[in-house]
C-alpha cells in the first residue's frame, strides 16, 4: 500500500477492483465504510461477481475475469480524451513530457524488439532520448509525437467505451459511470483510492493490471496524496515483512538483489545498480545501494566480511536462474529436487495444478513441514480417495511434521499491509512439545555445521562464515534479531569535522547513517530506525493523531523512516504548498519540509531546487511510460492463456507474449470448445486460506466447498440449488455443492454469451470442514511475465450436475 488502512478514510471515491476488501480484509474495509459514513465518499466496485464489497457499493459494474487491462485502459482513454487530468501534477511529477527514442513502435499488440523464439523483448528502443548533458530530453509543450503524452494518447485511443463493452462484458453505461467517478477526482481537492489484491496480480499479465491503475492515479494526481494512492491488500499477516526480508529467490533484504553468475565480483554487482539521476538536481535514492549492500553483508558474515574479501560477497550463493515457486515445482516434478522444507506453507493446496504438485512431492527424498497444525501437504502421501488419490506404498518420501509454536506463543514483529511494523507479545506457553521456528532453524543449522566439522564435505567455508553471534546460539531472541535488522555502528562514526555522530555499538537511527566501508551493519536498510538508539519503535502504542488526518505516526514504525504515505511530497505543488486545504499533508514551511507525516523526501531541500518527489527513480518523477516492464512500457490488452474468446483488440496475441510457460504445461491448456466456461478462484471471509478449515468455529460458519453458478447457467445445465456439481478443467476436477445465485450473471462478449463460475479456495482434505479436492486441481501452471504469479483468476472449465444430496 502506498497509503495506509486508516488513510482510506480521507478518500472521496473508493474504487475496489481486482480485490474484495470486504471479504478478505474486513477490518481494513472498515475505513471504506467510515469514508462513506463520515465524509460521504462514494464506493465503486468492478468484479466478475457481485461480492461482499459490491454489497456495500454505490455503484457496481461486472467484468469478465482477465480483461482488467481493457477496462482500465478504457478509463485512461476517457481521462485523456476528456482531459480529466491534474495538469500541474502530471506535468511536473511524471515523465509525461519525456521523449522516447527514435525507432520505438507498437503494432498488432507487440512493441518493437520482440523475439518470438525466446518469448522476450529487446528493450533497446524503449529508452528515453538522452541529451548531450546526460539528461533526458523533454518537450514541456507535450506536442512532440515522441513525447510520452502523445504516445499514450495514440496508444489508448483504441479502448473506446464500445470496445470495453465488447471485450470485458461491462455494459457501456456502467463502465462510463466508473470512468466519470474516477474523473471527478482529477480536481486538486478530491482524491480517489484504488484497492486491489490478488484479483489483479494472479494473471499472466498481473503487473500490467497494476500499471494501469498506477497510471490512472498519476493522471488524477492521486499518488502521495491523502485519500489517494494505489493500495495492494496483502494476504498473509506478515507477507509484507517477509517480502521486505526477501525470502524470494532473487531477493536480498530491503529489495536489494541476489548476486547472479554474471556478477562475479561485488563491484560488478554494484555498478550495475547505482542508478544516476537522469534529470538535473534529482536524488535517486539507489545511489546509496552500495551502503545498504555492504551493511547487509556485515550483518550476514560479521567479522568474516572484510574489505579484502568483498565483505564476503563470494560466500553468497549466486543464481544461474530465478527459482520462483512455479519453476521450483517444475524442477521438483522433473525429479531434480531432493528435499523441501515447508515453514507454515501448504503448497499442495496453494500451487497451481495440484496433480502436478502431488506428483512433484512424490519424487522428493524428504519433506519437512514446520507448522502449528497439520497441513494437507504434510499428508500428501496419504490416500484420501478422490480428494487425494495417493498410494503410500509407491511414495518413497520421508516426511517430518514438526510442531511449531502458534502466533500466541512467541514474540516478534509483524509488518502490516500499510508497511507498519508492530510488535506482539507472547500470551501463552508453547503448546505441548512445540518449538519456535527460530529454535528449530538454529538447531538445524548448528547440527549441520557440527556434521561438517566432524566429517567435512562440500562448501564448508561459506557455511562456517555465517555470523552466529547470539547470546543463546540455539535460541536467538526476538530482541537480538530485531536489533540486527535495524543495524548498528561498528566503530565510532564521525562527520566531516571528525565529530562522533554515532558511537561504536550504538543502534543506527536512520539508513542515512549507513556506510559502504564496513563500519556499519544492518540487515534491512528500509527498517533502519525501527529499533534505533531510542528503543524498539515497533512497540510504540501511542495512538494519538494530532493532525486529525488518521496518520497515527507514533504507533509502531512504518518503513521507510516511519513514513505513512509514500511519495508524500507529491501532496504539495512545486512551491511546496498543499494542492488544497482539504488534502493538506506534507508541505514546505519556508525552512523545512514537514506536516502531518514524515516527509518522503530530504527535509532540507527547498522547492526551488526542483527536486522531484519520486526519489527512488533516477527520473525523480514517476513513470507513465515504464521501460523496465518485461511485457511492454505501456499496458496492452492480453487475454488469459485460457480464454473463451480470441483477443478482440489484437487478434494476433495469444495470452501474454512474454509470459514463461513450461512445455508440459503448455500441453494441458484447455480450449474454449471443450471448456466454454470461465472460472475464477477466491477467498471466503469465513476462512483464511487453508488453515481455518481446521478451526472449528470457522468450519461451522462455512462448512463445505461450493461452486457459485448464475441462475441462467443453472437453468441451462439443469443444476439445482444445493445439488452436487462436477467442475473439470483440462488438468483435473472438483466436486461441490451448487450455490445458485443472482450475484453472477452471464456476459455478452462480442455478441456471444459467456458464463462464469466462482470457486472458493479454502477447502481441502485435512481439517474440520467437509473433505474436498484442492481447487488448484483445476488451475493452469503459468505465471505473470514480471512477477511469476500464477494465473489463478481466469481459466476455463466445464460444469455438470451429478448425483448427490440435494438440499
Amino acid at each position, binding site marked *: 500500500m502506498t497509503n495506509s488502512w486508516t488513510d482510506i478514510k480521507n478518500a472521496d471515491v473508493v474504487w475496489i477492483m481486482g480485490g474484495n476488501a470486504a471479504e478478505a480484509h474486513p477490518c481494513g474495509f472498515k475505513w471504506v465504510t*467510515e469514508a462513506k459514513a463520515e465524509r460521504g465518499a462514494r464506493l465503486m466496485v468492478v468484479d466478475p461477481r457481485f461480492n*461482499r464489497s459490491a454489497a456495500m457499493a454505490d455503484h457496481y459494474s461486472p467484468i469478465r475475469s482477465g480483461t482488467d487491462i481493457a477496462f482500465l485502459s478504457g478509463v485512461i482513454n476517457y481521462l485523456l480524451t476528456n482531459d480529466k487530468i491534474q495538469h500541474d501534477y502530471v506535468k511536473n511529477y511524471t515523465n509525461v513530457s519525456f521523449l522516447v527514442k527514435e525507432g520505438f513502435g507498437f503494432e498488432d499488440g507487440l512493441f518493437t524488439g520482440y523475439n518470438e523464439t525466446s518469448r522476450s523483448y529487446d528493450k533497446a528502443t524503449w529508452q528515453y532520448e538522452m541529451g548531450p548533458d546526460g539528461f533526458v530530453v523533454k518537450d514541456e509543450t507535450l506536442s512532440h509525437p515522441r513525447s510520452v503524452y502523445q504516445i499514450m494518447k495514440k496508444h489508448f485511443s483504441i479502448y473506446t467505451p464500445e470496445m470495453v463493452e465488447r471485450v470485458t462484458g461491462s455494459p457501456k453505461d456502467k463502465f462510463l459511470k466508473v470512468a466519470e467517478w474516477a474523473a471527478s477526482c482529477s480536481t486538486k481537492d478530491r482524491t480517489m483510492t484504488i484497492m486491489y489484491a490478488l484479483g489483479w496480480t494472479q494473471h499472466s499479465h498481473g503487473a500490467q493490471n497494476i500499471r494501469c491503475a498506477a497510471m490512472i492515479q498519476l493522471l488524477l494526481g492521486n499518488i502521495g496524496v491523502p485519500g489517494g494512492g494505489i493500495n495492494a491488500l496483502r494476504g498473509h499477516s506478515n507477507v509484507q515483512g517477509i517480502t521486505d526480508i526477501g525470502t524470494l529467490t532473487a531477493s536480498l533484504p530491503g529489495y536489494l538483489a541476489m548476486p547472479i553468475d554474471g556478477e562475479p565480483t561485488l563491484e560488478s554487482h554494484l555498478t550495475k545498480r547505482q542508478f544516476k539521476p537522469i534529470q538535473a538536481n534529482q536524488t535517486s535514492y539507489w545511489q546509496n545501494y552500495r551502503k545498504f549492500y555492504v551493511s547487509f553483508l556485515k550483518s550476514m558474515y560479521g567479522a568474516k566480511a572484510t574489505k579484502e574479501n568483498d565483505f564476503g560477497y563470494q560466500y553468497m550463493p549466486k543464481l544461474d536462474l530465478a527459482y520462483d515457486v512455479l519453476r521450483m515445482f517444475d524442477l521438483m516434478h522433473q525429479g531434480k529436487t531432493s528435499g523441501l522444507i515447508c515453514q507454515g506453507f501448504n503448497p499442495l493446496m496453494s500451487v497451481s495444478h495440484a496433480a502436478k504438485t502431488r506428483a512433484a512431492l512424490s519424487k522428493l527424498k524428504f519433506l519437512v513441514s514446520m507448522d502449528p497444525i497439520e497441513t494437507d501437504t504434510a499428508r500428501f502421501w496419504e490416500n484420501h480417495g478422490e480428494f487425494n488419490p495417493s498410494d503410500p506404498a509407491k511414495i518413497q518420501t520421508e516426511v517430518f511434521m514438526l510442531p511449531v509454536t502458534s502466533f500466541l506463543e512467541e514474540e516478534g514483529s509483524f509488518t502490516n499491509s500499510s508497511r507498519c511494523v508492530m510488535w506482539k507479545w507472547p500470551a501463552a506457553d508453547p503448546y505441548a512439545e512445540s518449538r519456535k521456528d527460530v529454535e528449530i532453524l538454529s538447531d538445524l543449522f548448528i547440527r549441520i555445521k557440527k556434521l561438517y566439522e566432524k566429517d567435512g564435505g562440500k562448501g564448508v567455508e561459506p557455511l562456517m562464515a555465517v555470523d552466529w553471534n547470539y547470546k543463546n546460539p540455539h535460541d536467538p531472541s526476538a530482541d537480538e534479531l530485531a536489533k540486527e535488522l535495524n543495524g548498528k555502528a561498528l566503530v565510532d562514526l564521525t562527520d566531516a569535522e571528525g565529530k562522533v555522530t554515532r558511537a561504536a555499538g550504538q543502534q543506527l537511527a536512520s539508513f542515512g547513517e549507513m556506510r559502504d566501508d564496513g563500519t556499519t551493519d544492518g540487515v534491512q536498510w528500509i527498517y533502519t530506525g525501527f529499533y534505533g538508539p531510542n528503543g524498539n519503535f515497533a512497540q510504540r502504542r501511542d495512538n494519538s493523531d494530532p493532525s486529525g488526518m488518521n496518520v497515527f505516526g507514533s504507533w509502531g514504525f512504518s518503513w521507510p523512516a516511519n513514513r505513512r504515505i509514500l511519495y508524500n511530497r507529491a501532496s504539495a505543488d512545486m512551491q511546496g504548498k498543499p494542492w488544497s486545504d482539504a488534502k493538506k499533508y506534507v508541505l514546505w514551511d519556508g525552512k523545512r519540509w514537514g506536516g502531518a507525516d514524515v516527509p518522503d523526501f530530504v527535509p532540507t531541500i527547498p522547492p526551488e531546487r526542483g527536486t522531484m518527489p519520486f526519489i527512488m527513480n533516477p527520473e525523480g518523477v514517476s513513470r507513465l511510460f515504464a521501460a523496465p516492464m518485461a511485457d511492454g512500457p505501456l499496458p496492452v490488452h492480453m487475454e488469459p492463456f485460457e480464454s473463451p474468446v480470441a483477443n478482440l483488440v489484437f487478434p494476433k496475441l495469444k495470452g501474454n507474449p512474454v509470459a514463461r510457460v513450461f512445455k508440459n504445461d503448455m500441453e494441458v491448456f484447455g480450449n474454449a470448445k471443450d471448456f466454454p466456461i470461465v472460472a475464477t478462484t477466491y477467498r471466503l*471471509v469465513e476462512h483464511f486460506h487453508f488453515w481455518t478449515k481446521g478451526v472449528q468455529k470457522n468450519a461451522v460458519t462455512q462448512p463445505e466447498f461450493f461452486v457459485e453458478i448464475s441462475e441462467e447457467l443453472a437453468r441451462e445445465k439443469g443444476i439445482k440449488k444445493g445439488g452436487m456439481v462436477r467442475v473439470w478443467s483440462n488438468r483435473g476436477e472438483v466436486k461441490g455443492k451448487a450455490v445458485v445465485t443472482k450475484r453472477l450473471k452471464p456476459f455478452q462478449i462480442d455478441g456471444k454469451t459467456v458464463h462464469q463460475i466462482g470457486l472458493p479456495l479454502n477447502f481441502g482434505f485435512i481439517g474440520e470442514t467437509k473433505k474436498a479436492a484442492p481447487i488448484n486441481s483445476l488451475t493452469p501452471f503459468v505465471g505473470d511475465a514480471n512477477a511469476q504469479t500464477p494465473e489463478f483468476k481466469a481459466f476455463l472449465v466445464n460444469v455438470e450436475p451429478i448425483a448427490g444430496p440435494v438440499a
Partner: protein
Amino acid sequence: MFTIIPNPQAKPIDAKFGDKDLIRRSASSITPVAQRQPEVAKLIDVSKCIGCKACQVACLEWNNLTEEVGVNVGVYDNPHDLTPNTWTLMRYTEYENPESGNLEWLIRKDGCMHCEDPGCLKACPAPGAIVQYSNGIVDFVKANCIGCGYCIKGCPFNIPRISKVDNKAYKCTLCSDRVAVGQGPACQKACPTQAIVFGTKDEMKKWAEKRITDLKSRGFKNAGLYDPPGVQGTHVMYVLQHADKPNIYAGLADNPRISPIVELWKGGTKYAGLALIGLTAAFGFLHHIVAGPNRVTDHDEQEAKRLAGK
C-alpha cells in the same frame, strides 16, 4: 466512527446491575425497581453489514458455545437456523430492487430483539425463568427454566430454541455479563464495519438518524429505523434501507406483536379457566347442601327383590 468502549480488564469487577434491577419476572408478581437504569440498545445497521459472521463467531467464543459443523445447502446461511448454540445468525437475501433495477445483497443479523414487552416472558410458566432488567435486557435464567418451550410460542420473532441436551431454552443474552462490567456485547465488539453499535437507546436512535440521512443521500428514500411499537419497541434495533418493507430482510416481521392467541391464552383463559373450575366445584358443593344425597330406599330394594324374584 462511533465511540469505542475501552478494552476489558483482567480483574474481578462487580456487576453493575442485577436482581435488584428487575422490572419483569416470569410467572411472578414483582414490584419493578423504582429508578430504571438508562435503557441500553444494540443498533444493527444492515446497510453497513458485510455478512462476515464475525458476530456469530464472537458470540460462540465469548459464550463458550460449540455448534456442530454442518453442510452447505446452496446458500451462505450457516448454520441454517438459530439453534440452542447459535444465538445469532446472518440471513442473506438477494433482492432485485424494482425501482433502481440494481441487485442488493441484504444481510440481516438475526437474534433476540430484547423486546420492551417480551412475549417469551409473558408466556413463561416458570417463576423467574425469564427476567427483564431495568436497562431493557431480557435474560433467561437457566436454573429456573423447565424447558416447556412456551417462550417459543410467546416470541413474536421466533428466537428461543430448546436444547435437546439439557432441555433448557437458549437465546442471546445481549451479553449481560459484559454489559454488567461496562463492556458492549461480544458481537458488537467484533463487528469490523461498526454495523453493530451499542449504547443507550437514546444514543442509538440519534446514531441511527445520522445513518438514515446518509442512506437517503444515496437514494434509499425509505431508509429508516426498525423499533417496532407492537412490542413497545426493542433493545435491538435495525437500520434498514427499505424500512417500508421489513419482510424482504429474510422475513423480518413487518409489524411484530405478541400473538393474540398467546394473549388470549395467557390473559383471559388463565383466569376464566380457574374460575370455571371453581364454579363447577362450588355448584356441586351447594347442590349437596341444598338437595342432599340421593339415597336408595328400602322400597327400592323390595322392588328389586320383587322383580328379580319373579
